[in-house]
């Protein structure tokens, strides 16, 4: 077969190339550029090499201290909400009806919080929790519990965690429900015949069959909670003090509040890298979990 050489097809790639360049590569490179410089305004920049990165990882400096503290808070927050939302989501999914019109009602009710925009959720809880006019805050104080998320760090944390659980447990529950629905009826019948208790059914059938969706749920909830910004920002503004200042809130403070573009750029690169690494770990774990399931050899 004769082939004619024609390079014109490269022009077809050009639009994609340009879009990617302007939307991803150039902004990212700008950030990399900023992270190596310092500025005192007036668009004047001074070379600082890896100075910001060194500071960032050194807890004794101001930048490093703030970054590592907020990172710690962020990890703690993610762990807490995972520890609550995953078991709670499973329980909700298990207690949902398996058929009938109530299924649709449950699904819609569960989906409602997921459809509310982040800062509306924040505003709802900000008002809900206010001791003077909020239903929750007023009631708690009325029955003698001293609750004030503006002045008490523990109250602020509880508010932020409860808010996240309220907002996102549905996602875990819906994913688990999908996993549960895909289990054929025969498994339950076989378990009945095998005399399995409710707990044994959960352990031997439901949990193993849900493990794929649970991995997805954990991944999604971890990434989302690790990048959380809007809701705590609206409710507590990162306070009281710095007690609910997460990495993203710290980042915005440095970049827009102090206009320290260099520090902020370095911080955002490290932040980004952490998320990429965690993503990669989850991806590897998930694909490995999948390949384990392939049938290999049989006993004929």
């Amino acid at each position, binding site marked *: 077969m004769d082939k004619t050489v024609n390079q014109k097809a490269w022009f077809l790639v050009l639009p994609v190339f340009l879009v990617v360049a302007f939307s991803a590569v150039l902004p990212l490179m700008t950030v990399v550029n900023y992270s190596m410089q310092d500025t005192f305004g007036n668009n004047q920049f001074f070379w600082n090499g890896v100075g910001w990165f060194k500071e960032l990882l050194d807890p004794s400096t101001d930048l490093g201290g703030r970054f590592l503290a907020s990172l710690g808070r962020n990890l703690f927050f993610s762990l807490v909400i995972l520890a609550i939302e995953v078991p709670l989501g499973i329980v909700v999914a298990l207690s949902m009806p398996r058929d009938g019109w109530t299924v649709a009602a449950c699904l819609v009710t569960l989906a409602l919080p997921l459809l509310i925009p982040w800062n509306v959720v924040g505003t709802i809880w900000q008002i809900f929790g206010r001791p003077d006019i909020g239903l929750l805050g007023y009631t708690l104080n009325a029955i003698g519990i001293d609750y004030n998320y503006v002045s008490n760090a523990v109250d602020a944390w509880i508010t932020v965690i409860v808010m996240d659980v309220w907002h996102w447990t549905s996602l875990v529950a819906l994913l688990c429900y999908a996993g549960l629905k895909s289990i054929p009826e025969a498994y339950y019948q076989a378990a*009945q*015949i095998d005399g399995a208790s409710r707990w044994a059914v959960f352990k031997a059938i439901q949990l193993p069959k849900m493990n794929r969706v649970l991995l997805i749920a954990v991944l999604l909830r971890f990434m989302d909670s690790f990048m959380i910004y809007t809701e705590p920002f609206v409710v507590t503004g990162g306070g009281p003090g710095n007690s609910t200042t997460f990495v993203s809130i710290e980042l915005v403070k440095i970049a827009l509040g102090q206009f320290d573009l260099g520090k902020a750029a370095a911080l955002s690169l490290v932040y980004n890298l952490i998320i990429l690494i965690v993503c990669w770990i989850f991806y590897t774990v998930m694909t490995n979990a999948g390949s384990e399931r392939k049938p290999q050899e049989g006993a004929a």
Partner: protein
Amino acid sequence: MARIDLVDLAHSYGGNDAPQETFALKPVTMTWRQGGAYALLGPSGCGKTTLLNVISGIITPSRGKILFDEVDITPLSTQKRNIAQVFQFPVIYDTMTVGQNLAFPLKNRGVPKAEIDKRVAEIGRLLDLEPYLNRKATRLTADAKQKISLGRGLVRSDVAAVLFDEPLTVIDPELKWQLRSKLKALHRELDLTMIYVTHDQTEALTFADTVVVMHDGRVVQSGTPAELFDKPAHTFVGYFIGSPGMNIIPAEVRGREARIDGHVIALNRAYDNLPDGARIEIGVRPEFVDAVTPAPGLLTSKIERIDDLGRIRFARVRVGDAKLAARAPNGFTSSDGTAGLKFDPAHIHVYADSLLVEGAA
């Protein structure tokens, strides 16, 4: 080990007040003897799986009783009945090894560990699963998984009956034979009552010593494979069993004569007591009809095609509106596309409203 009696057993998914035609399982009374190999045969939706689930306790029948050794177990839950069931698709506990899978029913019942190990080893040996006992069950092939499902039933020493719900559906054809003969061997060895649901007549006829044919929620006949073949009690049985199925031809029957399209066919027995107004048909297996060169005195038919099955050829012919199959003896050819049909009177049955009528000698 048990004898199973079904007493006026019926099930309707719509409740007992629904008209009886809508019952998934119409009232049936029958006995399954201890140690028998039974097949429940019928097309999809004939109620055979419903009957099986009623016996295993997954469905509580809306009417009637089930007795295991004369004890009424109808209200008992599945756990409390001593039955094992193998489903259409292999049910395997993914996270467990083959051995743990086999041990699961015993563990749930609180059997001591030493006893469990003994039973698992024994069943593993019986089912040729020994080399795999410590392997994850998910990695095995479908037929091995079905053996594990079966093993979970057999591992209990008190099991009264093993129920199979089309267990070979997902098995490769060449392994089906192996697994089926394994089941037969187990049946001989363990003296268990086995009930095998299938829509495949070959599976049913090779596995069972008694085949129960179901049609439209009703048990239409129960008997040995030979009985089903020689003397179908219902036109459905005649048609469903055998390949090709029985020829069912509308006819007028009077005394020792059947009349098709004005042509008279002699019968071996006298039928003087046919119910008035019933739909009368005669049924004869293709094996007992010969397609021969047309001759006076023979029913003439039009040949549509001839199927060569290797050892035997069947002519597909048409008489009026009725389609028939007839054996085409070696060397038979037709010059004008017609054939005469020669019936064997000993094997012609008469059906009134689809039910077999016994003639007088």
